[in-house]
Every structure is written in structure tokens, then in C-alpha cells.
């Protein structure tokens, strides 16, 4: 017998269940308990850069929108820095870069307001195209799903992005690119996430 390595093992995931809102968005569950709920203001009032809206649905294998999803977003600011000690240069006061959003119980639509992130540093060299990191939990999802959202108006940066280029099937890269349009003068990006099917969204084992 060799020595024991003595690492602990990660705690196993379990589904967030249908009532995730009670814990993470109690107002949506139907009651007011906390001084402030967390994650509704991603960028804060002082963030530089373009103010954008991001909207979409999460669609199941039957083609139906899922109405009890919770998504979290983690993103850099417009200068490409994350609000974290290892995230690069300091960010604007009030910029957290993290948000949490739920889908509408009737339509399955979700949406949030933020600023468009800048390019971030690559793993060793170069840069990554602007993107949002997304984490998706719901009833029926046994372990949170990680994906990324890129921006359709960043075609040049997307073409050289090291993560998009990891995806061997070029047609699948499009599942990660949100289409830009405009509504009342505000840029709106549409990002539908498909859990199954030919156009299944690319998910990452991070």
C-alpha cells in the first residue's frame, strides 16, 4: 500500500429543484424577507461602457421553454477586468459583475441589464473575445450547466477566441453567439439556450 493522498472529495451536486426562488430570489417565490436580494444589479451605476440588455429562454428537449430556471452571470467590466483580487485591474465602484435572474413563470423568458464586457486576458497569451459566463440550474438539472455567451457584433474577436476555437464542430460555435438588435435605443442581445437537439447549446466542463 502506498501513502494516502488525503484529499477531500468535492460535495456532490443535487438539483436546485422547483423552489430555488425561495432561497435565491424570495421575492419571486412570493414573499419579502431580506433587506436586499442579491444579484439584480450586475454593473452598478458607475460602470463605464455600453449599457446593454440580454434576453432569452432556456428550451428543453421537447422544444418547450423552461419556466423555473435560475441563471447566474459572471462577467468582466468594459475594460476586461473581473471584480476579484485576481481579476486584473480594479473595477468601478459598485461593479460586481455578477448577477442572478429567473425565468418568468408564464413565458420562460429571462432578461437582465448590464454593460458589455471587454476582451479579457487569455489563459497564457493573447485575449479572449468579450463574453458572459453563465451558470444554469433548475428542477431536472442535476448539476449546474456552464456555458458562455458571445456577441454577434464582435465577429473579428470571436474568430480568434481560443475557447470558441476549441469547439471542433464549427457550426456549434454559433450556439454561443447572441444576436444584437436594438429596442428604444438600447442594444438587446438575444440568447436562447437549448438543452437538447441538433442545435444543442455548447456546455463546458470547466
Amino acid at each position: 500500500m502506498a501513502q494516502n493522498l488525503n484529499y477531500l472529495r468535492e460535495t456532490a451536486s443535487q438539483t436546485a429543484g422547483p423552489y430555488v426562488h425561495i432561497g435565491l430570489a424570495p421575492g419571486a417565490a412570493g414573499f419579502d424577507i431580506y433587506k436586499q436580494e442579491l444579484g439584480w444589479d450586475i454593473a452598478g451605476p458607475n460602470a463605464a461602457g455600453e449599457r446593454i440588455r440580454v434576453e432569452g429562454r432556456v428550451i428543453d428537449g421537447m422544444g418547450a421553454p423552461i419556466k423555473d430556471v435560475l441563471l447566474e452571470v459572471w462577467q468582466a467590466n468594459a475594460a476586461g477586468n473581473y471584480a476579484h483580487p485576481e481579476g486584473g485591474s480594479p473595477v468601478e465602484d459598485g461593479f460586481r459583475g455578477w448577477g442572478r435572474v429567473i425565468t418568468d413563470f408564464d413565458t420562460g423568458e429571462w432578461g437582465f441589464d448590464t454593460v458589455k464586457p471587454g476582451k479579457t486576458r487569455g489563459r497564457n497569451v493573447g485575449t479572449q473575445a468579450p463574453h458572459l459566463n453563465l451558470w444554469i440550474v433548475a428542477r431536472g438539472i442535476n448539476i449546474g450547466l456552464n456555458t458562455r455567451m458571445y456577441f454577434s457584433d464582435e465577429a473579428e474577436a470571436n474568430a480568434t477566441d481560443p475557447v470558441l476555437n476549441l469547439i471542433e464542430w464549427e457550426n456549434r460555435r454559433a450556439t454561443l453567439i447572441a444576436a444584437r438588435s436594438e429596442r428604444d435605443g438600447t442594444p438587446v442581445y438575444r440568447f436562447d439556450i437549448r438543452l437538447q437537439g441538433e442545435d444543442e447549446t455548447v456546455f463546458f466542463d470547466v
Partner: protein
Amino acid sequence: MTTPGEFYQRDRTLHPPAHTPGYKTSVARSPRYSMISLQNSVGEITGPVFGHNDIDAGDNDLIFNYAKPGESAIGERIILHGRVLDENGRPVPNTLVEIWQANAGGRYRHKKDTYLAPIDPNFGGCGRTLTDENGYYFFRTIKPGAYPWRNYVNSWRPAHIHLSVFGSGFVQRLITQLYFEGDPFLPICPIIQTIPDPEAVDQLIARLDLNATIPLDSVAYKFDVVLRGRRSTLFENRLEGN
């Protein structure tokens, strides 16, 4: 001098796979293509930072945090405490822990829950706290009741408390459920059965902690949470790759 590197690869053999037919809802909600394996970069090793301005001191006391003045939640009073650690056994300090649960009758305070057990007017069912510098956390609450659900016609969830934990990097993000030792529903729960590894199931079952129990007041259960650990960057000077 070593600097922290990326997080250890997640051991997927201890986690439930996405597609688990015994838990019916997972069938249409499980991706079918392989996930793309991604080495960590800046967006993975970083994650949101929370502080004491984000929460109130009483948020971790579910017996009182939604109760009317002078009243309290009904049920078996329990203390839930433990540490958030990483796979290296190091404490994870100042990290946000959020919990939610049914009341003592198994009813959730949620507009979509229609179970016939009554709402407890003094129980909201959620709490949150930050771990201290040693990774320690504690809540006071009531023990939740078993809860029926439509998987099979006669499916009941064991008493459980949902936990959400952050860690320092976004790839440590974890939501799980805590169970109580001795519950007869544990071996027949389709959601627990999504986990293929018996030791990983044991790690979700909180044990009675008589030492932390407050005599004549509250029973204590201890529950440690383990998040992914980080590698040290030894001898690394890579310039290639992404």
C-alpha cells in the same frame, strides 16, 4: 514561491450525470452532447465577492427571520453548522452560503407549491450567511418535513435543506441538498439515486452532533461542504496554448 493555479478537474464520477431516467424531469432537461473540456482562465478562477454589507446578521436565523415580533417558527428546533472546505482541506473563508427549505409540515412558501400541509405564518424558509475566516458557518432553523412530489405517484422527498455555496472561483459554484441521518426515505429517493457513488451520498447526510446541541433548547446537526481545490503552479512557465 507558488501561486494558486487552476482548480482541480471536477470528479464527474461522484456527481449525478445529467441524464438520470429515474428522476423523470431530468430526461428532457439533460444535454446529450459531450461537454467541451475547458482549462481555467481568468473568468473561471475568479468569482463574485460578498461582504457583510450584503446581508443582515439575523439572516441566518430561520426561526425568527420571518416571524412576527414575539412569535417563532413551528417545528423541531435545530442548529445546522459546519465548515466550507476545499479539496485540500483548507477553509474557504468569507463565502456566501444560502439555504432554503420546507416548513415542519413539508410545505414550501412558494406561489407554485400547492401541497395541502399549511403554511407556517412565522416561517419564510430561507437563510444566508458568510463563512468566517476559518470557513465556519451556522444557521438556526426547524427541521423540515418530508414532502410529496410527482415523480412516481407515491414519491416523497426525505427531509432536506437546499444549500447554495460560492467559493472564490465561479467554477466552484455548487448547489446541493443536505439530508438527515436515519431518514427512512433516504434509500428510496429518486433524486439521491441520481448520485452514482455511495460515499458521495453519505457526504450529503448530516449527522447528529450532540456536542453542539444546546441542552433543553436545540438539536445540532453538523454538515461540512467541500468545494473544488486549487492547484499550486509548480515549475510552470508555459507560453503556448490558450
